[in-house]
């Protein structure tokens, strides 16, 4: 059992080292080669050096981003491992895994029991009115898009102009409303305010 645990630790170390070497490989190290190549292409040595410096800066910037992502991924993997580890006792964990370190098929049947709980939690979240409405809205949008495609195929082009969700506001931003000259002042005022929301 002790041997197995050690094996797992070795595996873990191995994974980390591979990732590190990958990061190192991604940075270019042959400065001279690069400069020579540029000189061969017709640039002067100074120009070639300047280009190399710029290229290195660019590589540094992009390389930094890649590394951050990798680190994030690594952390995520580690976090999930820790989570898994905390849920199961080490003994159970090792009994699940064979010599290869993968869970056996029999043991994999345990997972749905745990997953089922998560699923039911997710479902209860989803059944909240807002989420249900969101799902409906997404479905309706998809349907509308499909219908629009069909209509375009038939020659009609609906919604070439965006729909106005606040027609009153749009009217307001235009010209000043013209009141009717009929009736008393109060009648005119009432007529103008009748449809104001």
């Amino acid at each position, binding site marked *: 059992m002790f041997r197995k645990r050690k094996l797992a630790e070795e595996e873990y170390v191995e994974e980390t080292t591979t990732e590190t070497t990958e990061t190192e490989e991604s940075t270019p190290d042959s400065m001279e080669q690069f400069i020579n190549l540029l000189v061969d292409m017709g640039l002067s040595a100074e120009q070639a050096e300047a280009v190399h410096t710029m290229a290195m800066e660019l590589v540094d910037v992009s390389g930094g981003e890649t590394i951050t992502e990798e680190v994030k991924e690594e952390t995520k993997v580690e976090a999930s491992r820790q989570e898994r580890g905390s849920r199961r006792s080490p003994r159970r964990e090792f009994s699940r895994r064979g010599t290869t370190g993968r869970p056996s098929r029999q043991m994999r049947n345990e997972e749905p029991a745990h997953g089922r709980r998560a699923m039911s939690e997710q479902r209860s979240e989803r059944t909240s009115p807002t989420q249900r409405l969101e799902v409906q809205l997404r479905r309706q949008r998809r349907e509308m898009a499909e219908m629009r495609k069909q209509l375009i195929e038939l020659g009609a082009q609906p919604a070439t102009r965006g729909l106005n969700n606040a027609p009153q506001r749009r009217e307001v931003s235009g010209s000043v*409303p*013209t009141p009717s000259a009929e009736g008393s*002042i109060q009648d005119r*005022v009432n007529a103008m*305010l009748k449809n*104001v929301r």
Partner: protein
Amino acid sequence: MNNRYNSLPSRRSRRELSNNPQGLPGTYAGVLSTPFIAPALKTADTLVKGYVRQIDGISFKAVLSATSIADDVIQVGGASNCAFDDGNSVTLSESILTLTDLKVNEELCRATMLNSWQEQLGPRNTADWSSPEYRNFVMGQVAAKTAAGVENAIWKGSNGVFANGFLSSDGVFDDDGLAASSLANATTQAIAAMTAANVLQQIGLVYNKAATDKSAILSKPDLKFFVSNKTAALYRQAIATAGGGIAFDTAGLASGAATTTTGQGYNNMVTNQAFGALNFLGIEIAECPGMFDDAIVLAQTENLIVGSNLSTDYTEASYIQTYLYDGSDNVRVTMRFGLGTVAGIAADAIVGKTF
């Protein structure tokens, strides 16, 4: 098991009180205030009937330019007449319309307005205190009152509030008021206080002044007589009984005095008729409730200009539900807008005055 509790409100909705007071969004600025400010600024008779020229969207001042060309631009041509006239035959005059900032700050009691509100709704309709309909009703009451004030202000001015009326700066039609008004430089004509018996003569005096001093304006299509409701009523009476002769009684024969008898009136229908648009020798008579009673203005629509800052960022209207905050039963209505008048070419307007 869960089904048992389905009919119960969720934890969140249990926390929400059903009688929570709901406030309306109450402040409208710039173009969003137009629906509330426009009824106040645009529904006055003089404005809604298009008797004067209206310019909206002025932020503070507007410069109105008018070009006048002397009649002698045509010269004798032919040999040795190759020179140009000087530039004095074309003159450019400017008049500046300056807005006066005005405001309405009214507090109204809901209970006082309730009866009118319910009356307007009808028996089967219900609307909440905090509904947009009730807000529109309250704003409408204030806007209508404001519109009546605008009608008076543009003709009479108002002491300390609006010194920019067409005929006065302080609400009084006298020398001082006229001298500080928009028509301070207008051509004037003395008239008598008007009655049904002499109204035709007084309007005739103003017409005659135009014929003798400003005959060019008589051919303009937008020329109008501007009179008050009272003067218009006197004019209707006069034309309904016009066409009479001169009657001499015994005393009259002896003394030579004569009295005018009533005739068959316009269309020979005496008073049994409805007068549509009033005219005097082909010139429209515009009935403006804001005009002074013993005053007559003869001017073109284009020459009398009313400006406002409608459709700018400077207008604002608020409906404040104070009852939500201070335990009173009040709502407050505020309006901020600018108003101004100017005469394009004041001398082309003729003002009949009794002083």
